[in-house]
């Protein structure tokens, strides 16, 4: 009760004080130019702060609506951007599709990877070009940093390929420019590791030496750098087994080159005829 009375007293005194001061300031403002100027300035400052604060509160409560509108706008812009990107991609691929190149025995064409698996033991990838684009089965898929895979099956618009990151995949390689030749396979553990096998013991090599495609297959052209030599061990006392660190990052390959050997059919035919009997 006493506290309530005290508070009422304080409020009463405050009201009287404010009323008298306002009256005094009003008189000051009407009678003194300097005071009038400062009063007007102070009043404008006060009003600006008051309106600013109320505007801030109103703005805060309208944030949900603003966020929704922004989200909607963001979605629309994102859709438009995707449409533009898709169009650009289409134009780019159309331009590249016309740039078929023949170098030596191989016929090269650009292609794009539309899907790739990386987390299995038998990984694969889907190429965004098919028979309509001139893709043939058993074409090699390469990049500037190595071998990506081999086309296994082709549809009208797409091609299914076996990735290098596949336990069934093996590529013929050469250790150094003029070194021994041996098959290289994926190590089955990481996206940047491979194993080079069957390197005779009499050959000398150093860690860091480059491994290239040998060219002794009808699928990949020769001398594509694949990786660098790492640790090695002797297997059965007869050959080296060498760990290779791949140059190609299988994390996100996007654009590749398809290489098809123009004489492959003839070579295969010849092999069948001579080897089969």
């Amino acid at each position, binding site marked *: 009760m006493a506290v309530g009375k005290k508070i009422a007293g304080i409020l009463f005194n405050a009201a009287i004080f404010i009323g*008298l001061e306002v009256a005094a300031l009003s008189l000051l403002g009407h009678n003194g130019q300097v*005071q009038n100027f400062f009063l007007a300035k102070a009043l404008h400052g006060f009003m600006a702060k008051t309106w600013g604060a109320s505007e801030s509160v109103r703005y805060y409560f309208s944030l949900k609506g603003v966020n929704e509108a922004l989200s909607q706008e963001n979605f629309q812009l994102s859709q438009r951007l995707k449409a533009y990107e898709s169009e650009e991609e289409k134009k780019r691929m159309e331009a590249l599709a016309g740039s078929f190149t023949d170098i030596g025995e191989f016929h090269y064409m650009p292609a794009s990877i539309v899907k790739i698996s990386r987390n299995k033991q038998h990984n694969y990838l889907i190429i965004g070009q098919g028979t309509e684009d001139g893709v043939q089965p058993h074409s090699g898929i390469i990049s500037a940093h190595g071998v990506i895979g081999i086309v296994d099956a082709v549809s009208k618009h797409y091609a299914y390929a076996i990735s290098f990151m596949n336990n069934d995949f093996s590529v013929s390689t050469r250790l150094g420019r003029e070194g021994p030749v041996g098959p290289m396979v994926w190590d089955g553990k990481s996206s940047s590791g491979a194993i080079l096998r069957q390197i005779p013991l009499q050959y000398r090599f150093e860690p860091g030496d480059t491994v290239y495609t040998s060219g002794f297959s009808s699928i990949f052209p020769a001398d594509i750098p694949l990786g660098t030599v790492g640790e090695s061990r002797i297997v059965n006392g007869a050959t080296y087994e060498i760990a290779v660190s791949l140059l190609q990052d299988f994390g996100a390959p996007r654009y590749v080159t398809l290489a098809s050997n123009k004489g492959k059919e003839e070579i295969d035919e010849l092999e069948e005829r001579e080897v089969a009997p």
Partner: protein
Amino acid sequence: MRQSFLLQYILLLIAQVLICNYFHFTPYLTLTLLPALILCLPTRLSTAAGMLIAFVTGITVDLLAEGVVGLNAFALVPVGLLRRGLVRFVFGEELLVRGENFSIHKFGLPKVIFAVFLMQTVFLVLYIWADGAPVRPFLFNFWRYFISVAAGTLLSVVVADLFTHDDRR
């Protein structure tokens, strides 16, 4: 006693009007008795009454003296607001409870000077600020305050002694 106080109050008010109109020694000096007048109001008067008296006193001086109307009232109302609190702070709660007034005889000169100084400070700070302090150099405002508070406090102590004359007897 009440008539004597009222008469003294009116006389000192007239004295203040005369000071405002005729005693312009220097722009650095604003001589005022008004804070002391308000401080010396009977302690039994409420804060609201003190503020109303301060406002009327200030307006009276403003109207009768040369100057801007509202200036003294603006600076004096806060003095009225703080009066009882300052009396409690400097002279103690007991004085307010008993409804007695302070005097130099009871509390000594230093305490009265201190109380008058605080009231003068409140009044002069507001007065100098409202009188256009923001457009004047800081040093001018400082010296104006310093000289005015020194002179005003000395004069106000004499006024306070006059007001507390009855209590002393």
